[in-house]
């Protein structure tokens, strides 16, 4: 694979990465511009579910608990911001590698789809940030895990693992072919 003949990754894959970048940017802008509002939203959400957060009715104790919920909710939003950028970038690289392998067109398409599915994984952090005030950390994490982290994060990990194996096999096959010629 030389730079002069490098093939472009599929357009739809790039678009999906750009959309994820967009969400990441949006979350960053929200954190920068509306930090206090986001905190107040998280605190109001937690106040509406006193049993979930074990609020005591004693003002200063509850104040600490609620501030902690707001901190954690914002921290998850920040993780979404970071992961959406990171994963978008890594996926563009993976799609470019895939586009330039010697795999069949069908395998490349299937792999590209498989890898692109992983782009949904960071939304688990967004969901966690959103549901933490109402569900509490444990339940919110379980939901995010079941709906996003395990299916899409897992799919992404498997795709990367499979790509490593297939790429290595393809490389060995090509070397052998070259040596027999």
């Amino acid at each position, binding site marked *: 694979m030389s730079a002069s003949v490098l093939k472009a990754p599929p357009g739809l894959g790039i678009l999906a990465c750009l959309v994820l970048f967009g969400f990441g940017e949006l979350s960053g802008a929200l954190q920068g511009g509306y930090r206090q509002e986001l905190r107040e939203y998280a605190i109001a959400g937690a106040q509406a579910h006193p049993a979930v957060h074990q609020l*005591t009715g*004693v*003002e200063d*104790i509850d*104040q*600490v*608990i609620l*501030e902690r919920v707001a901190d954690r909710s914002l921290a998850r939003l920040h993780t979404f911001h970071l992961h959406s950028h990171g994963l978008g970038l890594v996926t563009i690289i993976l799609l470019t590698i895939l586009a330039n392998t010697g795999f069949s067109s069908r395998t490349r398409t299937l792999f590209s789809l498989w890898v692109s599915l992983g782009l949904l994984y960071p939304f688990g952090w967004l969901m966690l940030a959103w549901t933490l005030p109402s569900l509490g950390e444990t339940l919110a994490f379980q939901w995010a895990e079941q709906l996003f982290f395990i299916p899409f994060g897992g799919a992404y990990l498997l795709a990367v693992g499979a790509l490593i194996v297939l790429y290595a096999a393809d490389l060995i096959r090509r070397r052998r072919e070259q040596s027999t010629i």
Partner: protein
Amino acid sequence: MRLRLTASAVGLLLLVGLAAPPAEAHDMRQPIPILLDRMYGVLLLLERGKPKEAIYLIGTVEELLQTKGLLGLAQTAAKLDQAYRTTVADELGLAIAARDTARLKSVIYSLTYLLMLEKLDQLTTMLPNRDVKPETRKIVMDLARDYFSHIFEETFGRRRPAQVKTLEQILDRMDGAVRQQAVPQFEQLRRKLSQTLLSHFAAELLPGLPG
């Protein structure tokens, strides 16, 4: 010229001295509640012989806390009076009206003690309940300790180190009892803490506080 230089040097040293945190500043375990922070501010002004400024600060505390939807100093005192059958709110009013520094200090110390007691009462309810998360119990214990550290330890740490040390050791053991959910041990230590604090600081606290 020399006089100017000396004055500048003294001014600089004073600035450095004031800006630097106290050598024995204590780490707070939880974010400091606004009320505690302002109570400490009031106490500092009283210690420096500035009762007018301290009373002004009490007024701003009321406004600040109420705009945040929280109870002010007087409302907190009234709430605690109701719970513990004390007269701290009245004492606060009288101390402000008379601009009585010693009485205001007593009110602040007594409020601190009652706020600690309030946290310890919460722990008494929480400890036997297995559903309460260890993290929640820790927050409550830390807050009780922070009230002690920020007011009593900061004020009396240098003047009466032995007495403060004794109370710190009790609080350390209470921390352990809370972690282990050891209810009888916690209750025993709680009684000991109240008795020790009330006897060591009897001169500074208002009379009739619960044990």
